[in-house]
């Protein structure tokens, strides 16, 4: 980790302020603490500076400065990531894109929008909604997460079952390369020539450069939406229903599964209308033409009943539909009702392995003396086991990490992957060998070298590495320095 003495830090601060203005640089330890982790609070690392550029030229100047000084730098959006991907693992500069949050242009004729990376995902759909359009990738954190962060992680969401993940919706990017050059990868047209640079940039977890403008596709809102809730007395029945839906040639927009523990937490928190005694529920959404949607909904209902659903009902109106989705999308928050902390896993398995893997996941977690809640994208086999724990109990956190690693191994064993949408970041870097050979990883390293030869751009991520300056430990309450000084109070 780069260590800066006070004189050098002060000089650098002045240089950074000359680029972005005095209000655009954080350097005091109290302020930097806010940026020490992302949504995965298990990992923490402190930056030397957090900088808030408002233009691509600022980003380029900051990157050039960092390169000159040999300081690592990492881009950060809203910090909702769940793998530690935007942590300053080796110190240096955090470049926050949160002040670059504009919709620059919407071209409805060509169904594209040009946006800045700090734009909140949902705000794009709000911006184009009045004209009947929306942005399809819908991570559960879409009220807070940014398009830039989505690009880094190639984020998904419930409706990506039908509409694809972020990479399927990004046409081009203006990128500040790790050497400070501003380059366009892809563009506004659907096709580009040469290697698919935009395609490899998306999902590169901030290690290939920093996107400063993004061209995304926007879609016409479907004419009709139909949401089906199927209730089961056994998790295995719900898993079977997923297979039945696929086997019947149906293509729902989303198929989400929610287990009992999660249903109860959600009902305690929000009262969304899920039956508390159900072992599992499937939330299935169809969209598209008004014609035929009733027929398809009936087919879904049949598939669920044939799999043993005790109840199948349709959302009667938009408000009931919104409530069901609120339950699904707020599930992570609702775990706060039943546990002081949880760790979300993000494995992917072939859909046909769902019943076996869910059983095994529950057994693994139980064997470590812990509880798990499952709420996940069943339609594409993207699991989210949430392991509940109390960080104040000595040793419990270590058991969570062990159980997590076993679940990742299980996903790999059945031919799956260790991440469907959250990214590798710091969290899963050491799990990469579960699914990739040394040769596979070496090829990824060579690709990285073509973009980021010095390695200063977001070091310590994706690849299994020597330990970096990251603190891993209990996330129990610690007083913030401003509390200690009596400047703020915790309620």
């Amino acid at each position: 980790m780069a260590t800066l003495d006070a004189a050098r830090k002060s000089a650098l601060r002045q240089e950074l302020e000359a680029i972005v203005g005095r209000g655009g640089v954080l350097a005091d330890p109290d302020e930097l603490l806010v940026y020490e982790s992302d949504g995965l609070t298990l990992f923490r690392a402190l930056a030397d500076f957090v900088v808030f550029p408002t233009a691509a030229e600022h980003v380029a100047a900051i990157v050039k400065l960092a390169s000159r000084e040999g300081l690592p730098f990492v881009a950060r959006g809203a910090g909702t990531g769940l793998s530690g991907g935007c942590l300053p693992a080796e110190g240096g500069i955090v470049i926050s894109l949160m002040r670059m949050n504009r919709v620059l242009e919407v071209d409805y004729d060509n169904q594209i929008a040009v946006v800045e990376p700090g734009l909140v995902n949902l705000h794009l759909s709000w911006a184009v909604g009045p004209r009947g359009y929306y942005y399809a990738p819908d991570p559960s954190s879409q009220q807070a997460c940014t398009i830039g962060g989505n690009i880094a992680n190639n984020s998904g969401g419930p409706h990506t079952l039908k509409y694809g993940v972020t990479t399927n919706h990004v046409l081009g990017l203006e990128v500040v390369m790790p050497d400070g050059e501003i380059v366009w990868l892809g563009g506004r047209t659907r096709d580009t020539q040469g290697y698919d640079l935009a395609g490899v940039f998306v999902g590169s977890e901030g290690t290939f450069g920093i996107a400063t403008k993004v061209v995304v596709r926007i879609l016409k809102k479907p004419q009709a939406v139909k949401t089906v809730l199927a209730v089961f007395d056994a998790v295995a029945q719900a898993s079977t229903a997923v297979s039945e839906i696929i086997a019947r040639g149906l293509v729902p927009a989303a198929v989400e599964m929610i287990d009992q523990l999660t249903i109860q937490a959600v009902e305690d928190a929000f009262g969304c209308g899920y039956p508390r005694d159900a072992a599992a529920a499937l939330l299935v959404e169809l969209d598209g033409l008004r014609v035929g949607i009733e027929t398809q909904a009936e087919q879904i209902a049949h598939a669920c009943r044939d799999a043993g659903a005790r109840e199948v009902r349709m959302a009667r109106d938009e408000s009931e539909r919104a409530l069901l989705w609120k339950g699904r999308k707020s599930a992570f928050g609702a775990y706060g009702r039943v546990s002081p902390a949880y760790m979300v896993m993000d494995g992917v398995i072939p859909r046909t392995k769902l019943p076996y893997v869910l059983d095994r996941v529950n057994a693994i977690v139980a064997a470590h003396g812990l509880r798990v809640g499952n709420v996940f994208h069943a339609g594409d086999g993207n699991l989210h086991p949430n392991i509940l724990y109390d960080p104040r109990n000595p040793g419990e956190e270590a058991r969570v990490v062990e159980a997590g690693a076993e679940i990742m191994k299980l996903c790999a064993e059945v031919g799956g992957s260790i991440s469907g949408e959250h990214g590798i970041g710091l969290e899963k870097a050491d799990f990469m060998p579960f699914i990739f050979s040394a040769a596979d990883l070496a090829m990824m390293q060579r690709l990285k070298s073509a973009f980021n030869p010095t390695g200063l751009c977001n070091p310590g991520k994706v690849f299994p590495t020597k330990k970096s300056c990251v603190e891993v430990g209990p996330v129990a309450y610690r007083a913030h320095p401003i509390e200690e000084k009596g400047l703020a109070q915790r309620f």
Partner: protein
Amino acid sequence: MPAVPLDKLRAIVGPAGVLSGVELSPYVVEGRTPETAVFPGSLDDVRAVVELAAAEGIPIIPWGGGTAAAVGTPIAPARSGLVLGLARLNRIVEHEPGDLTATAEAGTTVASLQAALKTRGQWLSLDPPDADRATVGGVMAANAWGPRRHLYGTARDLVIGMTVVTADGTVVRAGGKVVKNVAGYDLPKLFVGSYGTLGILVDVTVKLRPLPAEERLVAVRFERLKDAAAAARAVMASDVIPNALELLDAEAARALGGGPTLVVGFDGLGEQVDWQCGELQALVSPLGGAGVQAMGADAWPRLAHAAAVALGHQPAALMRLSVLPAQAGEVMEQAAVAARARGLVCACSAHAGVGAVVAALFSDQGQQELTRVVATLGDWRSIARGSGGHAVLEWAPLAVKSQVPVWDDAGAAGRIMQRIKAQLDPQNLLNPGRFVAGI
């Protein structure tokens, strides 16, 4: 220059898998005859052949069905290298209907894969031309597509994994077998459209879709291309969800009965297809469209070549213009005006919803019209750029290619591509010199 070690190659793949002499004639590209053509029968064979070629410094030209072999910058390399044919690697490795995924070896033809998937009610939603010859690996490498990309996207949207032999003979697994996967970099994207310059694709894993209950292709004829283009835009802004949206100018539509024509595909439940055809009629009538006419299913594969075969003889050049979708019609008109101004005839078709225009240029005479052909292609490239896009010279005789760059200027991105090539193929052995930015 040392001779290509035929004996060593025969030892790897067996004597029948190594061609020489007149057997090489199908593999002659732009007058270059390869030193040999080698047909490995397994992943390990591929690895061993590449390892040998790398050790001897022999260039490798990966070869699937050969349908895109002529695409690329003409070159006069020091040695013509060996063709590495994947035709023997043609098995479907795995198809798990419940997972909606399949893995096929690279030499599997698209048609045979589709036929196998169809028996289980599924398909790969990619419909490149010449499906009976085009191979799964070749289609990925050339990023080939067809009309249904309007709804279902291109290879990059469908591929989830690949086995690749890199330039030094290392076996690399890119991606995986599951439909959603962000572990590590998205390597499969790198190989889609790479024209064999980064590695040899040995097998490919793809996402599948259930076959729709019904599919229908319909045509609407217009008096003016302008109106047909307006109709295409109206369809895009409407509630219908076509799986294809093709715009053909009067020349390209000759085989369909002539007149600028909008061809639209619909799939889904029967009632959905019916409703959409009715809706289409309501959309096109005010814009001067004639009645919606159903076409036979056999019309689908003909759409890809509509422009190229329009005049019944070989075109002087084929150019692919990638432009903003809403400007496809205007670009087609401008291309025709430019050709006419030079005394030439052209035929254009477009996947209108994605802005992929194919323009075929025709001339009666060879040599004396060369200057006019070259000038027109230059005009077309300017037209594409004027619409925020670019143009690729898909096919032309060597005389034309020697004067018109095949690829458009890749700008600063081209330098990143060169760095990637240098990282993955430092000896520059894989299909050297044929690709973008001199790669």
